[in-house]
């Protein structure tokens, strides 16, 4: 396994773990307040829908779109997605944006779900829909990362396995502790994943645009170091700027 494959697996695993933690918060809130049956059914249907998106789009993109164009488009997508993650992580690390608080989100979801009326019947449509939406929307980011990184590098299987591994690990920990995972260092993970996504995005979109990277795949590591230093300087610089305390509503 080459260095860039390991980096790719780490990026997908980290991104998927972050999104899985966020989805787990919604699923646990729905399960505890509205019952587990409909909640788990909603989550399962969302996972099947996401798997169908990967199964439909992955091979179709690989077989019908030329690799150069694919790398250009997908690299661009990856670059935008990664820059969004990295920007948010830098602002949070420097105290310019409220941290993502799983406990606060959980409390908010529980209060909202408890206030909704429950209809007679074995299935709870509210629990199903909330769980489905939570898992599907968070999962779409995972799908995007898996497809973009997997296809542009020609390692869709590695990316898929890394994402599944992250989902299994987070779900297993969630089942064991039976609550949201607020102790996960989400911002640090987001920073690391953001750096990797921007590095891969720069590399692949650059390849598609005609950039000749010195050292070929090794350039990804160089980009990672460069962006890591830039993020460090940005955090240190922003920490010195006086700020008003961020509100928790800004954490979303």
């Amino acid at each position, binding site marked *: 396994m080459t260095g860039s494959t390991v980096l790719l697996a780490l990026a997908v695993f980290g991104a998927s773990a972050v999104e899985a933690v966020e989805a787990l918060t919604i699923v646990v809130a729905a399960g505890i307040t509205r019952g587990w049956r409909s909640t788990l059914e909603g989550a399962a249907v969302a996972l099947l829908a996401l798997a169908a998106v990967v199964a439909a789009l992955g091979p179709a993109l690989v077989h019908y779109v030329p690799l150069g164009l694919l790398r250009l488009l997908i690299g661009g997508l990856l670059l935008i997605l990664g820059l969004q993650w990295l920007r948010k992580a830098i602002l949070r690390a420097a105290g310019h944006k409220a941290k993502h608080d799983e406990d606060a989100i959980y409390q908010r979801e529980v209060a909202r779900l408890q206030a909704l009326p429950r209809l007679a019947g074995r299935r709870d449509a509210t629990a199903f829909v909330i769980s489905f939406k939570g898992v599907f929307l968070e999962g779409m980011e995972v799908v995007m990362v898996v497809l973009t990184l997997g296809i542009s590098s020609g390692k869709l299987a590695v990316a898929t396995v890394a994402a599944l591994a992250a989902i299994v690990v987070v779900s297993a920990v969630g089942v064991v502790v039976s609550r949201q995972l607020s102790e996960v260092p989400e911002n640090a993970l987001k920073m690391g994943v953001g750096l990797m996504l921007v590095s891969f995005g720069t590399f692949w979109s650059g390849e*598609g645009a*005609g950039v*000749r990277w010195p050292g070929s795949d090794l350039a990804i590591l160089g980009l990672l170091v460069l962006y890591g230093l830039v993020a460090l300087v940005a955090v240190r610089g922003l920490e010195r700027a006086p700020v008003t305390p961020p509100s928790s509503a800004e954490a979303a």
Partner: protein
Amino acid sequence: MSPARALGAFGHFWWEFLVGDTPELAVGSVAAIAVGFGVAHGAGALFVLFPAAVVGLLGLSVWRGRRR
């Protein structure tokens, strides 16, 4: 849900996903790639200029997002 509403919701989802509250990142990334592809395809210095554009874009967006 009517097809028009479904299409609107689909478009809104992708707009929020890719543009959201950071249009400078989406526009800047597309512009950097387009310039790289159209103007200087295969030019030697692009491996320096391209990451430099990304760093500038990130710096601008972070600066825009800071609390004053």
